[in-house]
């Protein structure tokens, strides 16, 4: 789905939510997904649509801190919740999250289309673990995100590296 909605339609719902820390109010159509509202009404284009049916993970955002597929989430579900998208990922880190920096150093993004979703899944893992993570932990956490370019190797390198730079050393990763 690529189009903005007929937002003036009579059955529009007023969505009140928080996106990347900003209070947002927007009239939405009840059948539209969170991904459609983010991308086409709010112009938050960082969350990508690869399949529109929950198969690829490119649209992964966080709802109340947990990774969620925005293409399978009706926008009304965001009512009163806190949404974080890739655009807000670096907010607490001076604009660039250590994961983004590690992905950049490791050339972990080729086309970069799956990257926003992978970053949102990876950030949730790192925040949950609060310690350096192992390659296998990263694999498990990212299993719902498809990448077609990299063969995953450099992404795993970057996630482990970022977890070490955030939480020091490699101890605890074994």
């Amino acid at each position: 789905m690529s189009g903005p909605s007929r937002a003036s339609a009579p059955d529009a719902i007023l969505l009140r939510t928080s996106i990347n820390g900003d209070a947002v109010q927007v009239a939405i159509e009840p059948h539209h997904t969170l991904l459609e509202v983010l991308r086409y009404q709010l112009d938050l284009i960082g969350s990508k649509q690869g399949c529109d049916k929950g198969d690829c993970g490119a649209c992964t955002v966080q709802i109340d801190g947990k990774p969620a597929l925005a293409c399978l989430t009706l926008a009304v579900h965001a009512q009163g919740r806190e949404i974080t998208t890739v655009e807000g990922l670096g907010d607490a880190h001076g604009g660039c999250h250590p994961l983004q920096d590690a992905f950049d150093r490791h050339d972990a993004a080729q086309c970069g289309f799956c990257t926003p979703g992978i970053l949102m899944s990876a950030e949730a893992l790192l925040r949950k673990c609060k310690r350096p993570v192992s390659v296998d932990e990263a694999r498990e956490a990212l299993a719902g995100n498809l990448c077609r370019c990299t063969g995953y190797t450099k992404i795993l390198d970057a996630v482990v590296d970022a977890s070490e730079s955030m939480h020091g050393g490699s101890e605890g990763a074994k």
Partner: protein
Amino acid sequence: MSDTNEMPTHETGGQVGGVHRKVDAMERMRGITRYTDDLKLPRMLHAKIKRCPHPHAKIVSIDASAALAMPGVHAVITGKDLPTPYGIIPWTPDETALCLEKALHVGDGVACVAADDEDTAIEALDKIEVTYEVLEPLFDPEEALEARDNPINPFSRKGNLSKKVLLEFGDVDAVLEQSDVVVEGDYFFEGTTHAAIEPHCALAHVEPGGVLTVWSATQVSHYLHRELSKVLELPANRIRVIQPPLGGAFGGKSEPFDLEFCVAKLALLTGRPVKLLYTREEVFYSHRGRHPMKMKYRTGFTKDGKITGVDAKTILDGGAYSSFGLVTTYYSGQLLCAPYGFDAYRFHSRRAYTNKPACGPKRGHGSVQPRFALECQLDKAAEQLGLDPIDMRLHNDIGDDAVTVNEFRVGSNGFSECLRRVRASSGWNAKRKELPYGRGLGVAGSTYISGTNYPIYPNEMPQAAVQITLDRSGRARVFSGANDIGQGSNTMLAVIAGNELGLPLEDIRVLSADTDLCPVDLGAYSSRITLMVGNACLEAAQKLRRAVCEAVGKRWEVPRKRVTLADGQAIDREDPQRNVPLAEAFQWAESDNGLMSATGSYNTPKDRHGEYRGGTIGASPAYSFTAHVAEVEVDAMTGIVDVKTIWVAHDCGRALSRKIVEGQMEGSAYMGFAEAIMEQHIVDPGHNGVHPGPSLLDYRIPTFLDTPELQALIVESPDAQGPYGAKEAGEGPLHPSIPAIANAIYDAVGVRMDSLPFTPPRVLAALQARAEQERAGTLKPHKPAREMA
């Protein structure tokens, strides 16, 4: 500017061979890069295509009146609005933007609607009444070739034969007759598709001055530009094509698609911007993926394992349209004559039209399938002759500065080094003897082209051109028509320009793939960009470097050659304390010469192939080489093949940017692994030719958990034809994945997997067949199982 032949200056700016942050990666990771579907224009309309539900049908009538009467619907077009046939290969224009008289596969487009929003467009599709006369479909390529009186494609001139190539070099029959061993094998390669995560998308708008601008997720802006001009009957100078950042392609976006013509036509008709984004299902039906190939091989060997001759017979299942099929048919044979030297070769390839989505180029175009067959043949011969498969391949290496049996000239060749690297890293020698039943190692090798010697349409103009402009703030702008599809070509150009001009990458702005701003480039296909566009960029950058050094030398009253550009400065080589920031050096040069801008052009050497008909197809300025070792574990109870590790050694000539090269090697090995183990792009004849699972769930591609350990080993055998010696790295490393895994399965459990993919039912069936032979006493047990503890 006299000394244009001076040696590459590796030491100049220190960029070449390093590790780089890509010039455009951080913006992608911050989610602010605008891919095609991220573009939005005022008053933009949304388009959707109505697609045929039948595999083969005559279109009797189309009634769009009810759709047009809907509020919010602005226009509907059908095949009659865009009747000019086109095709990426100029000799085979056999498709139209929307079907004219017939639909040739499920998913063929018949009409396109533009509406205020996508919901309305989708509703309108249902209101378009299409009356079909359903025709008998042909799904099997051999049956289609037989059905001469029932041509599928209305533009076909030879029934359902899309292309036939028969080439023979040397006396194959005599050579095979005299060989000590002749291995015969039948192989089948199931089709696979690209599955880039970004679906195809296009946006068109007629600018106020009347120029039609088309933004498209394409990897061939220039060819799209040409075909738009032809089909829309607009002069090319009234059309601008822009490729926004691209979300993966792998060959799946390397020709024009219906959506580009449709949005352009609808924008012209409505006067408003029109965008169309494929659904994932539409991506699967648009396809243009790897051809299914049925291959019959006879390969002769001497007792000591030297290949004597190869006889190949191949049927390609082309689907409904030609796409690149003429080239694919040649490639199915032409790209097989290295890395091994042999004296006689015959290939006979026929491509058939069938009522399926059209096949085209996928990473490793045309040669991944026959490479699978040939490398399995070699493994069978090695076993029969009692030779180590790596030794046997080393023994057959054609070497450097060689001429292949089909008369291609090979320059640098690091194949033997690739074999030695995978042998050492995998622990081949010890491990292969020790691994118990169920575990195994397999090897395979390959070669690939670094661009094709000739462009798709014959012309004598450069195949690549780059323009570089310096600005007074000490930066460079690189203008290139090349399509960065995620492979990092923008960064490659920045590395070359930065190396020559002494600039850090952040001071280089690469503007690419915009037909109004950039010189023509032919696109991201056949692994041509690093060699061709890289050479053009190097030439332009060297011209500027010399002019800047000249201007600095003049002011320092030293010869130009004493001045070097590095680390953002012009430096006196003999007195490094004397230096000046590049911004100032550029200003001196601009004062002396006017605006500092230079162009570089590249054209291929024309003396690197034979003179026979077809001898130019598959010829390249330089060839890359690859070897893989795969380690597998096969569960004999379930037939599940677990690929543990793939060691991939690739001779890329020279790695201009090491992590980017590794990424290409890892991504290639992953993609080949996926094709070996799980992927198959098929339609179901039992269900009217529909795709059994056109989604990223049902068409399984490997996740983080499925993908084996990938060990990338860069081999550098610099080639005189490449910039700083560089050759390709994006497609070659895929080729050996599949046969290395097949050969490893044999090593593990003693069954030959000659049909793809190696799914559990197929592996189990092969294991059962072997078990029966073992019970009957015609085969000995393959190898001992691990001792029980």
